C-alpha cells in the first residue's frame, strides 16, 4: 500500500513539475529560446506572491490575481526590451543573457529577502485531505494537479483554436513569411513570453505554498521542468504532463527506497529516457 501511495503522491507532484515545464516548452516552441533563468522566474513569482500575501493579507491563491498580471507584464517588457535582441541563428546570446539574468535575479532576491527560506501560509488548504480507501490525498496536491491539467488544456486550446495561437504557430514555422503576412514577430514573441510567465506565476505561487524556497531554489526547478519537457518529448504539451508525472513518481519512489535518493532517482529516470528514447517518450510527429 505504501508503494501505491508513493505512486499517487508522485503523480500529483508531477502536476507541479508539468507546470514548471509548460512555460519552458511554450517559449521554446514559439521562438526556440531556452530560458536558463526560468527557474529564477518561478522563484520570482513565489516571492511576489509572498510580498502580496504579507502586504494585503490575501490568501495565496487569491494573490494570484495580482501576481499573474505582474509576471505577464514583466514577461512582455523583458521580451521586447532585452530578449528579442538576442534571437537569431546563434544560440549563444539568448543562453548567456538568460544566464546573466539568472545570476542578477538570485542576488536581487538575496538583497530583498535575505537567504532565509520563506514559505507562504495557505491555512487549512495545506493540511486538508480526502480519504480514498486507505489512501489519504492532500487537497493542495490534488488542486495543483487539477490546475496543471487545466493550464495545459488551456494552452492547447490557445495554440490550436485561437488567432493568437495561429500567430504563435506561424512565427514558429517561419518568421520571415509570418512577418510578410502582417504579423509583428517582436510583439508575438512578447505575448508568448507574457503567457509563459503567467503560467510561471501560477507554478511559483503553488511552489511557495507547497514548500519553502530561498534565493537559490531556481536552478533545481529549471532542471525539473527541463527534464519533464525532454522525457515527454519536445513540442508535445500533454507529453510534458506525462514527463512531469514520470519525474514525480521516480522521485517519490526513490525517496521511498532511501530519503537521500529522492532527487537522484529523478535525474536517473531522465538519463534513462535520454539513453533509450532520445526524442522523449511522446515526440510530436512532425508532418
Amino acid at each position, binding site marked *: 500500500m505504501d508503494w501505491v501511495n508513493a505512486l499517487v503522491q508522485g503523480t500529483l507532484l508531477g502536476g507541479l513539475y508539468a507546470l514548471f515545464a509548460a512555460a519552458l516548452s511554450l517559449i521554446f516552441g514559439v521562438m526556440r*529560446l*531556452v530560458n*536558463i533563468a526560468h527557474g529564477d522566474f518561478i522563484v520570482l513569482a513565489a516571492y511576489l506572491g509572498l510580498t502580496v500575501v504579507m502586504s494585503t493579507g490575501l490568501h495565496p491563491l487569491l494573490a494570484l490575481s495580482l501576481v499573474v498580471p505582474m509576471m505577464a507584464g514583466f514577461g512582455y517588457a523583458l521580451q521586447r526590451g*532585452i530578449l528579442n*535582441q*538576442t534571437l537569431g541563428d546563434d*544560440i*549563444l*546570446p*539568448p*543562453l*548567456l*543573457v538568460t*544566464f*546573466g*539574468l539568472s*545570476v*542578477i535575479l*538570485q*542576488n*536581487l532576491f*538575496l*538583497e530583498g529577502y535575505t537567504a532565509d527560506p520563506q514559505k507562504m501560509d495557505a491555512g487549512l488548504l495545506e493540511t486538508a485531505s480526502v480519504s480514498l480507501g486507505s489512501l489519504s490525498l492532500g487537497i493542495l496536491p490534488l488542486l495543483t494537479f487539477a490546475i496543471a491539467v487545466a493550464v495545459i488544456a488551456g494552452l492547447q486550446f490557445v495554440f490550436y483554436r485561437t488567432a493568437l495561437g495561429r500567430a504563435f504557430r506561424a512565427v514558429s514555422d517561419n518568421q520571415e513569411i509570418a512577418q510578410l503576412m502582417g504579423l509583428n514577430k517582436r510583439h508575438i514573441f512578447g505575448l508568448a513570453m507574457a503567457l509563459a510567465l503567467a503560467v510561471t506565476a501560477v507554478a511559483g505561487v503553488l511552489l511557495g505554498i507547497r514548500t519553502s524556497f530561498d534565493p537559490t531554489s531556481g*536552478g*533545481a526547478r*529549471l*532542471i525539473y521542468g*527541463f*527534464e519533464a519537457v*525532454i522525457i515527454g518529448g519536445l513540442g508535445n504539451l500533454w507529453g510534458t504532463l506525462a514527463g512531469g508525472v514520470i519525474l514525480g513518481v521516480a522521485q517519490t519512489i526513490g525517496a521511498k527506497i532511501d530519503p*537521500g*535518493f529522492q*532527487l*537522484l532517482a529523478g*535525474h*536517473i529516470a*531522465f*538519463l534513462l529516457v*535520454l*539513453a533509450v528514447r*532520445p526524442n522523449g517518450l511522446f515526440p510530436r510527429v512532425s508532418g
Partner: protein
Amino acid sequence: MSAQTHTVSRISQAAKIASVVGAIVLIILVAAPWWAGRADLRLMGELFLYLALASLWNLMAGYAGLVSVGQQAYVGFGGYILFALTIFGGLPPVVAIAGAALLGALIAIPVAALIFRLRGAYFAIGTWVIAEVFRLSFAQLSVLGGGSGSSLPVDIVRSLASSRSGRESLAYWMALGAAVLVITVIYLFLRSRRGLALTAIRDNELAASSLGIDIWRTKFVVYVVTGALTSMLGALIFLQKLRISPDAAFSVNDWTAFVIFIVVIGGIGTIEGPIIGTLIFFALRETLADLGTTYLIVLGVVAIVVMLKAPKGVWGLLRERYDLQLFPLGYRVQQDRKTTD
C-alpha cells in the same frame, strides 16, 4: 606578376612582440614567490586557475559550439578524486592530480555519449543535470564526508613541502603551470589539423560537414579533453582549499557562472579573450567585492550588456580596431608596399 605583390605570413609583427613580452612576463611570474607577498601569491594562483578554466570553457563554447553550464561537474569530480586517491589510495598529491585528469577523461566518455543527444541550448541544461547527478552522488558517499564534506589530512598536506612558504610557492607554481599547460594545449590543438576542422565547424557546421569533417567525433574529442583538464584543475583548486564539500565542489556560481562571464566579457572564440576577461574579472572583484551581492549583480549586468552590444567582447573590439592577433592561428595575406605604390 600578382604572385610577387602579396606575401603570406603566419606570424604578424604584433604576435612577435607579444611572444617576447609574454616570455618576459612568464619569467617574472615564475619568480613571483621571491617578490610577491603571501596574499598576492594566493590571489595570482587563483587567477591562473580561473584563466585555465575560462580558456577551456572557451574552447568548448567558442570553438566547438558546446555551451556547457555544467563544467562544475568536472571541477568537483577532480577535487573529490584528489581527496579519494590521496586519503584512500595513499598516492602523493601530484600523482593524484594526474589521476584526476585521467579519470576525468574516462568519465567524460559515457557522459558525452549521453548528452550529445541533446541539441544546442538543451545540451547546456543537460550538462547541468550531469553536474547535479555528480553532486548528489558524491553527497551520498559517507566515506568522503557525505553532505558535509571532509578535509585533507595534515600529513598529506605536509607531504607536498615541509614549510608553509614552500607549500604556498608550490601551489602557486602548479597553478601557473596548469594555466600555461592549458593555453599551450589549446593553442597547439587549434593549429593542428583537428583544430582547423574545429574552426571550420565553428564558422559553418553544414559546410564543414560537407567537406568530410566528422563533426560528432571532433566535438567528442574536445569534450573529453576539456573534461580531463577541468578535472585536473578541480584537483588543483581543492588542493589549495584543503577542504571539500558537495556544495562547494559543484557550485554552479563559482565554477561556471564566473567562468562564463570571464569569457563573454573578454571575448569568446579567441585565445586572447579569456586572458583579458580574467584580468578584468579579478580587477572588478578586487575593487567591488566589498559590495557583496551588488558586485554579482553588476557582473551580470556587464555580461548582458557586452553580449548585446559587443558580442565579441573586449578583445573583439580591440582586434577589429587594430587588426591584432597575438596567438598566430591563421594565415595573413598582405600586399607588398613596394609594388602597390
